[in-house]
C-alpha cells in the first residue's frame, strides 16, 4: 500500500466512528510499521500514544507471526484529537497474539483501536483485552475483526471490551466482527458499557478523597492489571503514571 491511499470516509467500516476531519488534517499517513516474528520467537512491544490535544495521530501496524511465535502488545492510547492505533495481524500455525489496551479519552477526543486478526493456520490463539474510558464529549472505539481461514482448526480467539462513560455526552463504540471459515474453533467476545459506582464514590469522599481523586482511583482500578505483566519495570511505571495523570485530568 502506498502513501497515495485515498482519504477515508465514515462509510469505510474501519472508520465508521472515527474523526475523519482530524485525519484529513494530517493525511496522508506514513507506511505502517511492520513486525515479522520468526517461528518460535517471542516479541513484545509497549506503545504509549499521548500526543498533544490538537494533533491527529494514526499509528498502523502490520504483524506477521510465524509458527509457534508470540507477539504481545501493551497499549496506552490517550493522546490527540484523533488517536488511532491499528493492528493487522496474521497468525501462522500455533502462533499467539496478545493485546492489552487502555483507551482514555477526555474533551472532544476520538481515541480508537482497530484490529484485524487473521488466524490463517490451525492451532493459533489470540486474546485481546481492551478497557476504554470516555469523559466529556470524547469517543472511544474498538473495532475488532477476527478472521478464521478455511482449515484453521482449533483456533482460539477471545476479545473482551469494557467501557466506562463518565458523562452523558461521552460515547463508546464496540464492533466485534467474526468471519469464520472453519468448524472446530473457539471465538469468544464480550462487551459492556458502564458508569462509576456512586456508592463507592460517596464512600471514598467520606474518607476524605476529593471527587476527582476518587474517580481517578476507581478508574485506575478499572484498568488495573492491564499493564502488570509488562517486563520492563520503568516502562510499566511510565504507563501507570501517564494513565493516572490522564485519569485525574478527566475529573
Amino acid at each position, binding site marked *: 500500500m502506498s502513501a497515495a491511499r485515498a482519504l477515508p470516509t465514515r462509510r469505510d467500516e474501519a472508520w465508521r466512528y472515527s474523526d475523519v476531519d482530524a485525519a484529513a488534517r494530517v493525511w496522508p499517513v506514513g507506511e505502517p510499521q511492520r513486525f515479522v516474528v520468526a517461528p518460535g520467537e517471542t516479541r513484545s512491544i509497549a506503545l504509549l500514544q499521548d500526543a498533544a490535544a490538537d494533533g491527529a495521530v494514526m499509528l498502523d501496524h502490520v504483524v506477521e507471526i510465524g509458527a509457534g511465535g508470540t507477539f504481545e502488545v501493551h497499549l496506552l492510547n490517550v493522546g490527540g484529537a484523533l488517536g488511532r492505533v491499528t493492528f493487522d495481524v496474521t497468525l501462522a500455525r500455533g502462533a499467539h497474539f496478545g493485546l492489552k489496551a487502555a483507551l482514555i479519552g477526555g474533551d472532544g477526543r476520538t481515541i480508537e483501536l482497530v484490529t484485524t486478526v487473521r488466524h490463517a493456520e490451525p492451532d493459533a490463539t489470540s486474546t485481546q483485552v481492551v478497557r476504554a474510558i470516555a469523559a466529556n464529549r470524547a469517543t472511544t472505539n474498538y473495532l475488532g475483526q477476527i478472521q478464521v481461514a478455511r482449515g484453521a482448526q482449533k483456533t482460539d480467539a477471545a476479545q473482551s471490551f469494557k467501557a466506562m462513560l463518565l458523562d452523558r455526552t461521552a460515547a463508546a463504540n464496540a464492533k466485534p466482527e467474526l468471519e469464520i471459515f472453519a468448524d472446530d474453533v473457539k471465538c469468544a467476545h464480550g462487551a459492556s458499557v458502564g458508569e462509576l*459506582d*456512586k*456508592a*463507592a464514590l*460517596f*464512600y*471514598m*469522599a*467520606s*474518607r*476524605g*478523597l*476529593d*471527587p476527582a*481523586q*476518587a474517580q481517578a*482511583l*476507581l478508574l*485506575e*482500578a*478499572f484498568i*488495573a*492489571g492491564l499493564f502488570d505483566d509488562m517486563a520492563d519495570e520503568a516502562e510499566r511505571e511510565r504507563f501507570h503514571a501517564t494513565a493516572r495523570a490522564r485519569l485525574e485530568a478527566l475529573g
Partner: protein
Amino acid sequence: MLNIENLHATVADKPILKGLSLTINAGEIHAIMGPNGAGKSTLAYTLGGRPGYEVTGGGATFAGADLLDMEPHERAAAGLFLGFQYPVEIPGVSNVQFLREALNSQRTARGEAPLSAADFLRLAREKAGLLGMDMEMLKRPVNVGFSGGEKKRAEMVHMGILDPRLAILDETDSGLDIDALKTVGAGINAIMRAPGKAVLLITHYQRLLDYVQPDFVHILADGRIVRSGGPELALALEREGYAEVIAA
C-alpha cells in the same frame, strides 16, 4: 462540637428527619437508638453529605462551621468520620493505597504535610494491630471478600488511621459476634475516648453500649428525638421495648 438544630431532611422527596435537634460536646459519647425506619441511617448520611439526602430545613454546625455547606470530602478533612452500616467494596483498590491517599488528601486540605509511605505503613500497622487485623488484609482490595465482621473491623481501622474529631458510627455493631464486638468496642474507646473527641453511636441494641459506655442516650422515632437520658435509658429500652419507652 456538633450542633444540630431542627433538622429536616428528605430522601426521594419523602420527609424522614422532621425537626431533629442534638448537641454533642467534645469529650462526650452519645448513642442514638430507635426502631427501624426512625431515620437513624438518614441522620448519618445527611450529616455525611450523601447525595440524595436533601436538607429541607434547620441546620448543623461542626466545630463552628456550617457542616451542611461542605462537600463530603471537606467534612472528612474537618474531622468528621462516618462509619458505614454497609461498607462498600472497591475492587482493584487496596486498603493501603486508599487510606494513604485519603489521609494525605485530608492532611493537605488542612495544610499539613503528607505522610511518607514508610510513616503511613507504620501508622497503619499500629491501628490494624489495635483492632486485631492482619496487615495482609489491609493489602487486599477495600472490603472485597471481607466477612461482615471483618468489614466493621476494617471500618474501625480506617477510623484509627484517619483519626477524626467526631465519629458517627452507623450500626457498627451489626453483624458482629461477641468477640468481634468486644474488639470493636475496645477500638472505639482507644481511638475516640479523648477530651477533644466525640462519638455518635447509632445502634438498635444495647449490647455495644456494654463495651462503649455512652454519656447520653437518645431515642429517635419518626424523625425526631423523643427522649434523652443517661445509660439507664438504653437499659430500659432493652427491658421494655421501644413502644413502651416511647409512650412513657
